[in-house]
């Protein structure tokens, strides 16, 4: 037990960065803690708002009884997704595996400490989603003491079964990736398909909005599907909403058994799986013979082209980085293809809109595209991603402008074709006027420059090289937050200006955003890179 507590303490200190903050110098610690508090407050506020909004929406549709089911299901799945993303690096293929396993500590303690930190993270995500929804439910349904106790228990129990599934899935994917060189690409394609399916599903649902009764019927159907998807959530909801203790006991039993089975299996496979993941050895088949693949690659390129090539290889080799940085572009291209296809098939017509709305499409559609482009930044984490290899960048006889320019060029390699495709396709699909056509190109271009240069400038000034998994700079890095929030703010400002002053004024906004972004890049690259 003592060894478990010690190992868990180390895990939690590392997971939430508490120790780093405490042992930095006083001023830096204060800044870090203040920033962390701000980010946590923002996340809690957004999650609470969203959760309350959904729950209130369900209550308005007369679906109060279904709120516990949705809360338990979404809370459990959100935690499992977070745990899935962290499993590699915490449970498998973690850096201090050799050190930890050489300690006189039972494997059970090691596994338990690793699972416990993942579980703690799942519970935090569960709290964020479930507590606000339960509060709405309690207010509308007048929940009693038993119901409140069961809600609290469900927050603790709900993540267990999805966590077990997430860990098994992450282990299988990691094992698969370790054996196939191009497994990353397969993962990216599958993830893209999944996200597109979710987006298409959301549009299909929102497209059916209209009368409240139809929406309520649709919601009821969706809730029934959710219950089928994860029955333990339905059992928990039965307990909370109807006081059905048998159902809740079933939910608790299944969750606890899932956790226990996971633990038992992991104790057995922990060492073999980690050995498998860490045993990749060179194949040793390279030669300098003329026909050899490697020898053909030895061609001289300019430093800039070499840097761009390196950045592209990093992007392709890191699925989470590729997905995060390029998802917006994929959405735009897919939406454009769909719009053109709809136009060709005669499904899409501005004539169907009320006359007063038709001109608005030309004004606001560019900002919809700009939003997708503006929140897609491959550059925002790119300096931090140099990590422990940053000495290569810092000792290279190449200017900061060339190094950062190559990172920006990779972003623009995706952004510019997307802007061009979007501009041409949507202009044709919606038969826009001249000013709107110009806006279809200029507005997304302005935001793509923002996405390419602003996050990059922030990351160049405040890089964090001390990450342990790429998830940290890609998902949680401050420059990424700045790029995404900034992109959203620019889009909001642009929409407001378009609404107040018209489409022509939005061109001025977009040009200003683009010019300011380029100017920021030029100022940033006058200096040297931070070590």
């Amino acid at each position: 037990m003592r060894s478990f507590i010690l190992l868990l303490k180390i895990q939690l200190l590392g997971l939430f960065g508490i120790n780093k903050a405490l042992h930095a110098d006083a001023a830096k610690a204060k800044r870090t803690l203040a920033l962390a508090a701000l980010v946590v407050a923002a996340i809690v506020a957004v999650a609470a708002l969203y959760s309350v909004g959904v729950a209130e929406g369900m209550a308005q549709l007369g679906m109060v009884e279904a709120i516990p089911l949705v809360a338990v299901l979404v809370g459990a799945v959100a935690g499992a997704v977070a745990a899935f993303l962290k499993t590699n690096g915490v449970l498998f293929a973690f850096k201090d595996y050799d050190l930890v396993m050489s300690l006189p500590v039972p494997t059970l303690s090691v596994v338990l400490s690793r699972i416990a930190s993942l579980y703690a993270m799942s519970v935090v995500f569960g709290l964020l989603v479930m507590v606000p929804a339960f509060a709405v439910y309690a207010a509308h349904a007048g929940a009693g003491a038993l119901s409140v106790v069961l809600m609290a228990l469900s927050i603790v129990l709900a993540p267990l079964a999805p966590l077990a599934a997430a860990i098994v899935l992450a282990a299988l994917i990691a094992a698969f990736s370790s054996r196939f060189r191009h497994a990353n690409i397969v993962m990216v394609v599958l993830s893209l398909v999944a996200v597109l399916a979710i987006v298409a599903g959301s549009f299909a649902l929102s497209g059916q909005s209209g009368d409240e009764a139809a929406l309520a019927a649709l919601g009821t159907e969706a809730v029934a599907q959710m219950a089928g998807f994860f029955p333990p959530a339905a059992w928990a909801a039965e307990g909370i909403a109807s006081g059905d203790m048998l159902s809740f006991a079933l939910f608790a039993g299944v969750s606890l058994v899932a956790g226990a089975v996971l633990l038992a299996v992991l104790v057995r496979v922990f060492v073999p799986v980690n050995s498998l993941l860490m045993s990749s050895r060179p194949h040793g088949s390279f030669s300098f013979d003329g026909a050899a693949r490697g020898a053909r690659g030895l061609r001289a390129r300019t430093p800039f082209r070499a840097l761009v090539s390196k950045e592209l290889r990093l992007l392709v080799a890191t699925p989470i980085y590729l997905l995060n940085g390029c998802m917006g572009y994929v959405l735009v291209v897919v939406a454009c293809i769909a719009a053109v296809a709809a136009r060709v098939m005669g499904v899409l017509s501005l004539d169907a809109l009320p006359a007063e709305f038709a001109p608005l499409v030309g004004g606001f559609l560019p900002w919809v595209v700009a939003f997708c482009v503006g929140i897609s930044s491959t550059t925002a984490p790119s300096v931090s991603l140099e990590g422990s290899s940053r000495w290569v960048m810092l000792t290279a006889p190449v200017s900061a402008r060339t190094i950062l320019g190559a990172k920006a060029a990779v972003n623009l390699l995706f952004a510019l074709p997307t802007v061009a495709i979007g501009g041409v396709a949507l202009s044709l699909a919606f038969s826009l006027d001249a000013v709107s056509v110009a806006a279809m190109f200029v507005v997304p271009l302005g935001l793509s420059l923002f996405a390419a240069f602003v996050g990059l400038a922030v990351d160049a000034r405040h890089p964090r090289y001390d990450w342990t998994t790429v998830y940290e700079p890609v998902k949680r890095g401050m420059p990424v937050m700045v790029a995404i929030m900034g992109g959203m703010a620019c889009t909001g400002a642009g929409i407001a200006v378009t609404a107040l002053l018209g489409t022509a004024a939005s061109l001025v906004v977009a040009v200003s955003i683009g010019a300011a972004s380029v100017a920021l890049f030029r100022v940033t690259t006058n200096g040297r890179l931070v070590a």
Partner: protein
Amino acid sequence: MNDKGKAPVLAVKDVVKAFGSKRAVDGVSLEVMSGDIFGFVGHNGAGKTTLIRAIVGVTDFDEGDIRIAGRSVRTDALACKQVTAYVPDNPDVYEFLTGIQYLDYIADIFGVAADARRASIQAHADRLGLTSALGDLISSYSHGMRQKLVLIGALVHEPTLLVLDEPFVGLDPEAAFHVKEMLRELADRGSAVFFSSHVLEVVEKLCDKVAIIKQGRLRACGPTVDVVGDESLEDVFLDMIDREAEAGKEPVAERVAAGREGESRRGGRKT
């Protein structure tokens, strides 16, 4: 060895680098000439890596100047980097590249022609036994293989100054032997080699000159034969630590300058 009239490849002059109130490097001056292999010795935290990182342009410094081939690393950083190569103590390189992709990238960055890079990479990789693994991802390499890869990359542009931080850590005996040979050959071709090491026997045998740093200040610096005299470098190093633990002792650098270095060693530790 007579260095009079020759311009140093590396000239470190009164360099100070502080972290808060702690001076990690405190007024260090030294020169490395063409053809020199210069060993830099000190205990952990003495300031070796900090000075090395300042020389190669990874970190800034507060006072003084560092010149490489006559150019200041402050005002002419890119020109200095163009003629320098660096092998860090922990050879972390881009794991998503294969070995040959990394070497190709480094050659591109330093503007090495295709034929020259191929000849250099092939020669050094064959010698260090890394050729067959060059097509594999660096993520599959051991520490020693990464060390060899970084060294091959460092030599691809025939640097005027090669700076290495603990280059023998993780190398197998055969590779360590070849690396020592490669460093000597590079120096014989007119380049300068500056490296830190805790392996004092290697420093003593390989280096023409040696400097000992403690608490950010040079305690001894000069031709190896002068610093070591008729003892071993290990004796001198341990003797220095013992003596300077006693308060008020005169640093060895000042004794060397005052011609009293023999006196300092005579009372030294014998092992």
